[in-house]
């Protein structure tokens, strides 16, 4: 029995179709493939084909618990799926805007396989039902505002007339994102540009006045009128979007001036593209669940053709609350920090442990330290392999996606012997990557970064900044660690740095000789302040905390992805769409660790 069934009696053709659907399941994965691989799930091996568009999917698979903003996005995805559609939830409870899960299972590969088996039965029996109800959720509704064309600041929620000039208010759809977005630079700008839009709409009255009358009260039945209305809407809206122009130029004498305006006049204030042509720009969200971008990242690009004219990036994941003048048990603090980042949980666990040990003044043994090094380097390998899989997907390189994902799943819980046995596989992966034709030309020069001391991790090392928290760590230097760095600072350099780090991590695990997730040392009832730096796979993370009688009272965390998120604008400017997405992907952002 599935909630998203189609209406009808299950007989005849419908029964055949339901059986076919049960055998060929297509899935849309939320939050994304990178998270699924990090949790150890291999969806293709479980028998579900992953698709990129919700319309092609019959199952929405949610892997783990997700933040409220991501739940809203998942509800939108669910609403856009074609019925019969099912919801499979792994390892989480009720996900509020989404309907109740058709099948729940635990977050592991056997759990996934079990859940899929139950789903198949549910489809075969329940794809068609006599009575179905619509799926409704608040964020799916169009919020219609009424605004005056002459006075755009007049906005009402009901129809009526403008108090200033008496004109009938025109309906306008509000952007769906406005409801749950927190105040953000670009969104305020967005609202401003809506005002510009209406002024230019008026500006255009001159040349297209008769059309304005025609579409004023239409209810979108007339196709051609609708076209023009949309055309105006789109042209003005997008053209005005990135106002480098001032308010002043908009007010002059075109209010009520219905004289002829040539194309040059109409387009004179539109922003120009890099080749001098004024074309129309559109805002496109590359939403939280976009294949090829880190899941949870909302990248809104303003596209001029297929070139990026502007961008804004933010994360829709939850901002994990750290104690601020409140007391928290050390173990739950460690758990909170480690669950924050599903892509690198161990690194943050060690960060919390080391900070607490530093604050309590406890020394750890060399054996423990080496065990931690081994585990951290293993996590670095799995994280880089996960990034390589995403990178392969972005480039459309199917072999890399599958191979890197397969290796990542093998490395997740491997012990030292298994890791050494997998070493030749890593070597052959690197060798094949170096031999792939067109890879270098595809990546050279993309996403070039300049020297900036706030950069961290492989991104920094690819520019030549020797920023590595491991260089100052005595345990690492005893194992013979030396930071890798390259010069060019583009996407190719970042790829090469990560490949070199794969080799280096293997050598470090070999030298350390042990991989152990030791429990944190008992800090008893210590009091004090401490800090720790840990080189997570994405860069150095910095944690400062204060202990009071064995409880954590304040903590401040700095993560590498927080600063890297601000780089997206400069990286994507004037790049073609594919290059822009590749540049953002090469930063290896983890939206889960971005602190807001």
């Amino acid at each position, binding site marked *: 029995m599935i909630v998203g069934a189609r209406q009808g009696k299950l007989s005849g053709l419908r029964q055949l179709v339901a059986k076919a*659907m049960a055998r*060929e399941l297509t899935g849309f994965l939320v939050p994304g493939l990178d998270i699924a691989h990090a949790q150890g799930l291999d969806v293709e091996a479980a028998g579900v084909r992953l698709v*990129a568009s919700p319309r092609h999917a019959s199952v929405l698979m949610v892997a783990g618990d997700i933040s409220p903003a991501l739940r809203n996005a998942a509800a939108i995805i669910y609403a856009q799926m*074609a019925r019969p559609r099912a919801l499979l939830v792994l390892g989480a409870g009720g996900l509020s805007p989404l309907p109740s899960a058709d099948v729940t299972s635990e977050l592991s590969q056997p759990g996934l396989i079990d859940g899929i088996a139950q789903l198949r039965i549910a489809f075969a029996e329940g794809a068609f039902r006599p009575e179905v109800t619509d799926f409704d959720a608040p964020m799916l509704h169009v919020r219609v505002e009424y605004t005056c064309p002459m006075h755009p600041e007049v906005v009402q929620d009901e129809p009526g007339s403008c108090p200033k000039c008496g004109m009938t208010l025109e309906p306008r759809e509000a952007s769906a994102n406005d409801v749950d977005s927190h105040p953000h630079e670009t969104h305020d700008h967005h609202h401003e540009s809506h005002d510009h839009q209406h002024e230019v709409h008026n500006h255009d009255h001159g040349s297209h006045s008769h059309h304005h009358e025609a579409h004023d009260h239409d209810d979108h039945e007339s196709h051609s009128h609708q076209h023009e209305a949309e055309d105006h809407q789109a042209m003005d809206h997008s053209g005005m979007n990135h106002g480098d122009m001032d308010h002043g130029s908009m007010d002059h004498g075109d209010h009520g001036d219905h004289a002829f305006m040539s194309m040059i006049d109409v387009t004179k204030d539109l922003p120009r593209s890099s080749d001098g042509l004024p074309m129309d720009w*559109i805002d*496109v969200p590359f939403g939280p669940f976009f294949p090829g971008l880190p899941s949870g990242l909302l990248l809104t690009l303003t596209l001029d053709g*297929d070139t990026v004219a502007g961008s804004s990036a933010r994360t829709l994941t939850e901002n994990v609350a750290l104690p601020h003048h409140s007391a928290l048990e050390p173990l739950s603090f460690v758990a909170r920090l480690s669950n924050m980042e599903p892509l690198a949980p161990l690194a943050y666990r060690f960060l919390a442990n080391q900070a607490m040990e530093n604050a309590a003044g406890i020394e750890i043994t060399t054996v423990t330290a080496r065990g931690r090094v081994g585990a951290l380097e293993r996590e670095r390998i799995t994280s880089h392999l996960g990034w390589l899989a995403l990178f392969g997907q972005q480039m*459309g390189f199917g072999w890399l996606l599958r191979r890197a994902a397969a290796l990542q799943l093998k490395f997740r819980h491997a012990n030292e012997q298994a890791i050494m046995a997998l070493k030749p596989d890593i070597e052959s992966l690197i060798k094949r990557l170096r031999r792939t034709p*067109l890879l270098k030309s595809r990546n050279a020069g993309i996403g070039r970064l300049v020297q900036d001391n706030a950069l961290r991790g492989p991104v920094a090392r690819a520019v030549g900044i020797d920023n590595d928290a491991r260089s100052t760590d005595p345990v690492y230097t005893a194992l013979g660690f030396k930071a890798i760095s390259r010069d060019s600072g583009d996407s190719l350099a970042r790829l090469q740095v990560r490949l070199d780090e794969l080799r280096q991590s293997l050598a470090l695990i070999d030298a350390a000789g042990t991989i152990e997730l030791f429990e944190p040392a008992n800090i008893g009832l210590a009091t004090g302040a401490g800090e720790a730096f840990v080189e997570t796979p994405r860069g150095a993370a910095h944690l400062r905390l204060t202990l009071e009688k064995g409880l954590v009272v304040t903590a401040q965390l700095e993560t590498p992805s927080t600063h890297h998120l601000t780089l997206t604008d400069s990286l994507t400017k004037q790049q073609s769409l*594919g290059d822009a997405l590749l540049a953002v992907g090469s930063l290896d952002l983890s939206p889960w660790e971005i602190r807001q």
Partner: protein
Amino acid sequence: MTTALILLLLAVGAYLVAVIEAWTVSGRWQLAAPITAGIALLGRESIVPRKLDRVFFEVAPVLLLISALLAATVLPLTPGLIITDLATGALFINAALVYVLVALLMAGWGPNGAYAMIGGWRFLGQLIAYAMLIVMPVTAVAMRAESLLTTQIVTSQADLWNILYQPLGFVLFFVAAMALAFLPPFDLTTATSELAGGVEAEYSGVRLAVFRLGRLVLVITLAATTVVFYLGGWQGPWLPPWAWSAIKILAVTALMLLAGRVLPRIREADLLNLCWKLGIPLALLNIFVVGLQVLVWP
């Protein structure tokens, strides 16, 4: 009856293309998967986007299918098995395949969605790149055969297949054919990771099934075209003609589908650059060389 037989063979061919494509992606031979997936798609809802261009949205999948079918009608599978042996066969193939562009532009513009629109316009850029590389090698083939009749083109290769007679033309035509069928690495228009399905993304249910069927027929038609123009059609030593046709067509299909898995996607700017700065001079050289060859070796 020839028509019915060839259409049946096309359907079987499309099915085999789907099986081979699934194999190149997952490494497993799933023989029932295309049929089951097709039946499953029949039973899913077909969502029509809002504020769309209805005509374009509906016509696009059908036009893709029809254009591929029309191109297949002039291809001979065995000496007598051809739907219409047009006197301008080789030209007609090109004319029919141009409608693939029209279909994809319609599919891009119709749904009024950003990803689809960008996918559609990118395909136009791809067409500007590959179109000359389809037409020029075909001209060289027609020079050798002294005719545009596809049957004549096959029989003209009786002593030496065109792949050996004009290898440069074969390479250019093969690459251009992959670009026409928007197979990876030329899949700018339906890129999973850049456009989340692009042109295909807004189709669901039975319309998606027709779109996919059209694409499969397009792939097999292009493979058959390559075989007719360059690999000697039905000719071969011991096996009967239909067997040779089948083997060659399936081999070319497998090659087309495999080639994309080992290369990253080629950018539109790179493709245009490569085709116009390298491809067209080479194609012109090919015509010139074949012209000399035809005069020197009768």
